[in-house]
């Protein structure tokens, strides 16, 4: 079927199109040069903003911890439930929506591709089952490999070739997309009730340090030619004064050769940019971090922006969740996932009148606004850790309008107002910049060649918003802007119109993207490793891989590795 989007203001940063009035032609599920007007369905986009479909680099939408989070929070579901309609299914959820609701809500905001950032390898089957049930979106997932015993053992031995082969094997059998590292070394230590407090602390029983794990996996990432960089959740996350650790982490990865490409993606950087000695003297370390990132090209990051609401935190960083439990006393879940990782869940209410939360809010925005190059910054809330993804339009308004930020700023705790750098920052992102931080930059960082732009050959993922950039000054009329981005005028995915004026028109399944790594010779799993599986894992080696039939709409990406 042909589709022609006529006369919209097109923003396509990858192809350097900034608000030009032009037509977008779609044949089947791809964007093409032109289609005959007579036989095409025409969408009149005059006076509307046309963006590529949104890409979210980091959002916890599926997997063991998300599902446990749902179990832990019946009250979160009670306050927000969705009835079924003729097209959509019923669902619940404010901070952790059920799978179908997740798909619908993302689609309504013009998103078409999302990345589930932390999958314990042991939970891979469950994660893919849930991903299958999330409609309207293309998805991928990153397995947690930073504390996996085989990785730690081989890094300790100094055998990066072997490490790379195991990582390739794991990525393939779990149908993953990138290497996710959470608190490297810390999670392994947490199994013994300890944590690492700097990147040079020893990991018990392995005799290596977080520095070696990060550098090792960054090199492995390079050897395997993976599309994305290592996806890193830093050590000491959520602890005052941790910006120094973050700076050291970025410095230690400086020397990895990369031909000018990024080496590391630091996720939810807001939680890693705290200065001060304790919660009393807590302040922002965003200035130092942003300064470093402005001068170095090997780092990209996403914000992890706080929204003032009641949400659920969930991360593989078990020790951090325990710290949060000690702070809040709320109900909590904490697990050790065999030889791989750990996990924790705790509900959390971010409050304007709490000085720490208010400063955290400020840190996220400071980071995004003080980093000069928008291609290094991506807008996320680390859903649901800092707030549900439904708050994205609000965050975009804060980024695009000083007026919007200051309106919230005035209602913050007085102590936080004094410590914040925000009143001195006048930068306001344009629609072009917003297209970068919500789609193009993320697609580029993930090296998804057919996403995040509207050039010929791209996937026909388009989001059209009811906003006339010639008439509306988004810095002043931020409420109009927010409304437009909350309910897309049209969301088109793979050439199908899924959403019109915020209403779902049809339900459509998305693809699951995974890496099919071609190594020079087949990866052999020795009898020794199989014996370890029997001894240390609850799942047998034979049952461990996610077989092809687990994935409803499989979309492998073939990559030739150098090992």
């Amino acid at each position, binding site marked *: 079927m042909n589709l022609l989007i006529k006369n919209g203001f097109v923003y396509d940063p990858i192809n350097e199109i900034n608000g030009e009035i032009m037509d977008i032609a779609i044949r089947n599920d791809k964007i093409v040069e032109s289609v005959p007007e007579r036989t095409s369905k025409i969408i009149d986009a005059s006076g509307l903003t046309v963006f590529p479909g949104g890409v979210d680099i980091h959002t916890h939408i599926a997997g063991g911890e998300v599902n446990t989070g749902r179990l*832990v*929070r*019946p*009250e*979160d579901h*009670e306050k927000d439930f969705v*009835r079924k309609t003729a097209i959509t299914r019923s669902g619940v959820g404010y901070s952790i929506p059920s799978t179908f609701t997740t798909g619908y809500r993302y689609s309504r905001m013009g998103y078409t591709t999302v990345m589930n950032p932390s999958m314990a390898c042991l939970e891979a089957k469950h994660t893919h089952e849930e991903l299958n049930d999330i409609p309207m979106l293309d998805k991928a997932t990153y397995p947690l490999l930073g504390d996996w015993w085989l990785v730690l053992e081989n890094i300790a031995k100094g055998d990066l070739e072997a490490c790379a082969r195991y990582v390739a094997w794991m990525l393939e059998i779990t149908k993953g997309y990138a290497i996710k590292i959470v608190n490297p070394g810390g999670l392994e230590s947490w199994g013994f009730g300890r944590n690492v407090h700097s990147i040079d602390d020893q990991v018990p029983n392995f005799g290596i340090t977080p520095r070696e794990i990060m550098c090792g996996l960054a090199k492995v990432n390079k050897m395997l030619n993976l599309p994305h960089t290592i996806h890193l959740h830093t050590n000491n996350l959520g602890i005052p004064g941790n910006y120094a650790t973050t700076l050291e982490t970025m410095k230690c990865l400086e020397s990895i050769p990369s031909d000018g490409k990024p080496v590391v993606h630091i996720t939810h950087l807001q939680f890693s940019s705290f200065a001060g000695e304790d919660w009393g003297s807590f302040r922002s370390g965003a200035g130092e971090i942003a300064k470093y990132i402005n001068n170095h090209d090997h780092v990209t990051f996403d914000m992890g922006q706080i929204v003032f609401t009641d949400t659920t935190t969930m991360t593989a960083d078990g020790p951090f969740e325990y710290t949060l439990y000690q702070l809040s006393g*709320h*109900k909590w879940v904490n697990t050790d996932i065999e030889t791989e990782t750990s996990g924790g869940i705790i509900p959390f209410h971010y409050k304007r009148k709490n000085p720490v939360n208010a400063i955290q809010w400020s840190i996220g925005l400071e980071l995004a606004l003080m980093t000069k190059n928008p291609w290094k910054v991506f807008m996320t809330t680390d859903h649901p850790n800092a707030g549900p993804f439904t708050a994205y339009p609000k965050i975009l308004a804060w980024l695009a309008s000083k007026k919007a930020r200051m309106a919230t700023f005035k209602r913050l705790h007085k102590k936080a107002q004094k410590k914040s750098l925000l009143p001195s920052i006048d930068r306001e992102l344009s629609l072009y910049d917003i297209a970068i931080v919500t789609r193009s930059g993320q697609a580029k960082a993930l090296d998804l060649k057919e996403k995040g732009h509207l050039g010929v050959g791209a996937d026909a993922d388009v989001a059209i918003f009811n906003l006339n950039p010639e008439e509306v000054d988004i810095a002043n009329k931020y409420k109009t802007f927010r409304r437009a981005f909350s309910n897309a005028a049209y969301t088109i995915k793979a050439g199908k119109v899924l959403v019109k004026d915020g209403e779902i028109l049809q339900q459509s399944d998305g693809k699951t993207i995974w890496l099919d790594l071609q190594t020079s010779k087949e990866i052999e799993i020795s009898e020794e490793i199989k014996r370890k599986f029997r001894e240390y894992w609850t799942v047998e080696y034979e049952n461990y891989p996610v077989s092809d039939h687990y994935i409803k709409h499989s979309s492998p990406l073939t990559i030739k590795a150098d090992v």
Partner: protein
Amino acid sequence: MIVLTPFKKSQYPIIAQCINPDVFQEKSKEEIGNLPVWIGNKKRRLVDLFKVEKNSANSTSITINGDVTQVRRIGWGMTQGEIVVNGNVGMHLGKKMSGGKIVVNGNAEGWAGSEMKGGLIEIKGDAGDYLGSPYRGSTVGMRKGKIVVDGNVGSDAAVFMKSGTIRIRGNAGPFIGFRMTGGVIHIEKNAGTRLGACMIGGKIVVSGRLENIMPTFAIERLKGKVKIEPGDKAVGPFYVFLGDLAENGRGKLFVSKEKNPQLSQYERFL
């Protein structure tokens, strides 16, 4: 005054959040009749299920005549006015209400006065479980207001209670005042087991028999009278227990000495 009479006793649950003086205020009889209600998974109008009568203009009083056991969420979030139910009433009565008065001349189901912020609920019959307690999983308990139950109460009343008063004239089930942090509960007859488990503040007064007391409560002293509300005292003598010590709590249990001879062994610790 607005009078609602159900046509029949429903077989399916009805969600009628609209039965609320704030919603009915300044609406004509027709407008009130057209308010949406859900019966099972079907959307209906109020007038499909109830006979609606309006006696005087702009009154904030609602009377329901008949059995509405299946009707949930009556008086949800009301801030003013009065609801009188002449019959039994369903779950979530007066949830999140912050003002006004609800009188039930019959029994109430679970979660009456859940997450209440103010106002008064009087239940002349029995109340179900979770009286004045938050929804499962939530930690936002009763914050103000008063609940009076003339009959018995089920389990888990006043969970996470922060402030306000609950008076139970009959017997109470187990787990009353679980994790409460403030407020006063007066049980005039017998109380169930695990009374005040995990409480860290507030008072619970039991004028009747208490089967057993949690081992994490320590006796503090004997007291003659306890203040329930200004001008209202319960007459003892009472054993005063402090707890829940497992949570470093400073909550107080007042248990009638006269009705609980089995607790006399605690006197040696005084």
